[in-house]
């Protein structure tokens, strides 16, 4: 490009940026309070929309000059709905577990008065003398936010917020560089694909750039099918432009003309926000023909997946885009050489693309300085299951499992014991306590039989049965297997049937050897990642928790008291309080009745083992217990 064109691009963007900054300063003029409500899907499930409505109603009713804006997910999902209030004179304060009643009080007492309602505070966003800040939380020491930085801090439906926060500057910088230089930068950064397998991103880009065939395509793989993972959803809902900018950079680097963002249909809000973001970017000519007046043209279409796990696999995803059932194809040829409609196609994960702008802005050296020898940068995990601080975390590669679970996630709730952590969803594995000191990166996880996968981390405690979790994942992969390869289609089914038998107490001891053998066969005989990794949950649980399998088979007992066919609920007569009827009322099938002495008794025939009575029994009595095997329940004398 000529120098004159370059300066035209810079000045065109400067104009956009100036306008965005004026908007931003108008909002944050320092004279009026601003309220932000986290309305990503996790917030909505907790009731954020009702809170938002209450706040808007109150502001309107009282005629206040106080904008109430929606933001994305801050990652503190355990305390949703979250409200952040920035009032002049105070550091921005973040409130957790807000409901409409608290929302009303925040307006009355804090916005109108001077009481920052300390009883509802989660923490302040900046250090100050009044409220402990989030940076003082123990987890802050381990976290390093790069791609989650904007999440929860900007309005995802306002492109101006993104631009004012430094957005699209990497695009402008890139347009002044030759494409090879960008690929070189990504290569030197050491970035590896965040979809799970960890292929070096720069190398993929180079292959795609050098491949012949036009037009080329860039696809953002947002088919986050792993149950238990929600990082991509959070990024789409909280900071969609960072993904769009990443795609633009990729498109410019490899010489692509079109892009597709493939989003799961189960994420309706993400679809809406991405759709909206694309329109905004198009309006400012950051997308479309001759972007910012340059000779680079690139447009992105959104494609909604239709709920098939296998479509996360790149060749299956391409079939799905072409309107076919999502069945994988043999590789090579890799999509980078021959992909969508037979043309070179670059497929990157949402997070991978979100990193690119940071690498272009801050340089490859900066990115390479974070993380471990073989895995650079940060890792984003979705913490769920039996952990206190459920939510999103971003930590440098090489952080240990223990630090993530106990320091960032604050450990296991209700004083229970940690048993295992399931990483990487159906493709990953269950790691026991002995693996807690493992530094997490792509290679270390492979060594212990798990896999980074997309980054879902489900923590399991003493109440979780490892056979059941293996069975659960296998049921999932068996259902989602596309059926193309025989070992995957039939092998997963065979393994599932054996596991079903085991959790019913009908397993045989030779199953353990057969499972091991079959698992290896399915791995070896399947074409795509689904089949090749589907046995991982079985293999890791067999490796680390084989005693649980044996107890199920030999004693017909579930040590974690989870498998429903192997347990019974029982009310201890000497602990049951005569005047209390808590369990009777809550039992959903009316299986509990008081006997003559007003001691409550469960009718084992009627009981569906839902556990509601155990929850309902007041802590001071603690009379409801689970017994395994069910024959432990004393018979007769009622």
């Amino acid at each position, binding site marked *: 490009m000529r120098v004159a064109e370059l300066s035209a691009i810079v000045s065109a963007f400067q104009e956009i940026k100036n306008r965005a900054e004026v908007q931003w300063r108008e909002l944050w003029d320092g004279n009026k309070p601003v309220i932000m409500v986290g309305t990503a*899907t*996790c917030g*909505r*499930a*907790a009731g954020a929309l009702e809170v938002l409505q209450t706040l808007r109603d109150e502001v309107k009713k009282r005629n206040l000059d106080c904008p109430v804006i929606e933001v994305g997910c801050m990652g503190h*999902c355990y305390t*949703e709905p979250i409200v952040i209030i920035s009032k002049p004179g105070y550091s921005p304060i973040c409130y957790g577990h807000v409901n409409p009643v608290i929302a009303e009080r925040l307006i009355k007492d804090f916005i109108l008065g001077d009481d920052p309602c300390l009883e509802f505070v989660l923490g302040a966003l900046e250090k100050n003398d009044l409220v402990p800040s989030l940076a003082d939380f123990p987890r802050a020491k381990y976290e390093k936010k790069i791609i989650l930085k904007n999440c929860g801090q900007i309005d995802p439906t306002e492109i101006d917020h993104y631009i004012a926060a430094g957005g699209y500057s990497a695009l402008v910088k890139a347009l002044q560089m030759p494409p090879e230089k960008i690929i070189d930068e990504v290569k030197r950064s050491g970035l590896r694909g965040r979809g799970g397998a960890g292929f070096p991103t720069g190398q993929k880009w180079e292959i795609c750039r050098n491949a012949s065939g036009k037009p080329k395509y860039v696809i953002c793989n947002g088919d986050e*099918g*792993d*149950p*238990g*993972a*929600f990082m991509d*959803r*959070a990024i789409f809902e909280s900071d969609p432009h960072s993904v769009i900018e990443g795609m633009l950079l990729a498109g410019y680097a490899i010489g692509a003309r079109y892009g597709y963002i493939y989003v799961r*249909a*189960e*994420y*309706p809000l993400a679809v809406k926000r991405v759709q909206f973001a694309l329109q905004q970017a198009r309006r400012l000519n950051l997308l479309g023909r001759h972007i910012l007046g340059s000779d680079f043209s690139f447009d992105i279409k959104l*494609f*909604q*997946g*239709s*709920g*098939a*796990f296998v479509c996360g696999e790149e060749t299956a995803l391409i079939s*799905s*885009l*072409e*309107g*076919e*059932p*999502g069945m994988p194809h043999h590789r090579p040829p890799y999509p980078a050489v021959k992909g969508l409609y037979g043309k070179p196609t670059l497929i990157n994960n949402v997070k991978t693309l979100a990193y690119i702008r940071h690498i272009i802005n801050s340089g490859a050296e900066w990115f390479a300085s974070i993380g471990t020898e073989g895995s650079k940068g940060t890792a984003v995990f*979705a*913490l*769920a*299951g*039996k952990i206190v601080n*459920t*939510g999103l975390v971003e930590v440098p590669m090489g952080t240990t499992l223990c630090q993530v679970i106990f320091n960032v996630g604050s450990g296991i709730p209700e004083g229970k014991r940690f048993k295992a952590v*399931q990483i990487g969803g159906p493709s990953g594995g269950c790691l026991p306590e002995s693996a807690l000191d493992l530094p997490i990166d792509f290679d270390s996880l492979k060594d212990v039989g798990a896999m980074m996968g997309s980054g*879902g981390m*489900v923590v*399991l405690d003493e109440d*979780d049965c490892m056979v059941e*979790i293996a069975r*659960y*994942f296998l049921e*999932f992969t068996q259902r*989602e297997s*596309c059926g193309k390869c025989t070992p995957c289609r039939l092998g997963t089914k065979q393994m599932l049937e054996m596991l079903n038998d085991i959790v019913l107490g009908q397993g045989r001891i030779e199953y353990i050897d057969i499972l091991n053998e079959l698992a290896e066969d399915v791995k070896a005989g399947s074409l795509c990642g689904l089949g090749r990794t589907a046995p991982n949950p079985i293999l890791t649980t067999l490796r680390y928790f084989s005693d649980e399998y044996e107890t199920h088979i030999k004693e017909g007992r579930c040590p974690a008291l989870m498998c429903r066919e192997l347990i019974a609920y029982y009310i201890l007569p000497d602990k049951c309080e005569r005047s209390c009827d808590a369990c009777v009322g*809550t039992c*959903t*099938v009316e299986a509990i009745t008081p006997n003559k002495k007003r001691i409550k008794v469960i009718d084992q025939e009627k009981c*569906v*083992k*839902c*556990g*509601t009575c155990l*929850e309902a029994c007041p802590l001071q009595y603690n009379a409801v217990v689970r017994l395994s095997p069910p024959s432990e329940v004393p018979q007769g004398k009622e």
Partner: protein
Amino acid sequence: MEKKVSITEEKVKIKQETRQILKRFGRKRENLIPILQKVQDRLGYLPREAMLEIAEFLGIPDIDVYSVVTFYNQFRLTPPGRHSIRVCLGTACHMKGGYITLDAWRRRLDIGPGETTTDREFDLDTVACVGCCTMAPVAVVDDKPEGKVEPTKVDGMLLAFEREREKKESQ
């Protein structure tokens, strides 16, 4: 009560609505999934008549449309109920008792996943993961994700629907 419609009338209506949606699309195979999504959005499911209409429009064998419809979990072949209940069976929900909640819905509604009650009031289904793992167990009720849905909450929600219905009928 809604007006009773005869089967032939309903078929004609399905065809008309499908054709209207097809007007917005080009005759390209890659449009198949977006078309199916739009048609299901409008009709709530993909009846045989709609699928035949789509196959003819795209110039592809009927069986190709059927194979795509049955391959993807999102598409349904039976009419939905007035209220849709989708129980999340993601990892976190499963470990926190999503399958117990599913049982509770089954028991109360007397239908299994993928089915609709005979009065077409409710339909029940499962979903792989809606990404609200922190609120587990989750159920998506009429497109709204609800967190911490335990068996007692199932009863509470059904009661609320019943009240709402009574209120409407008395008006």
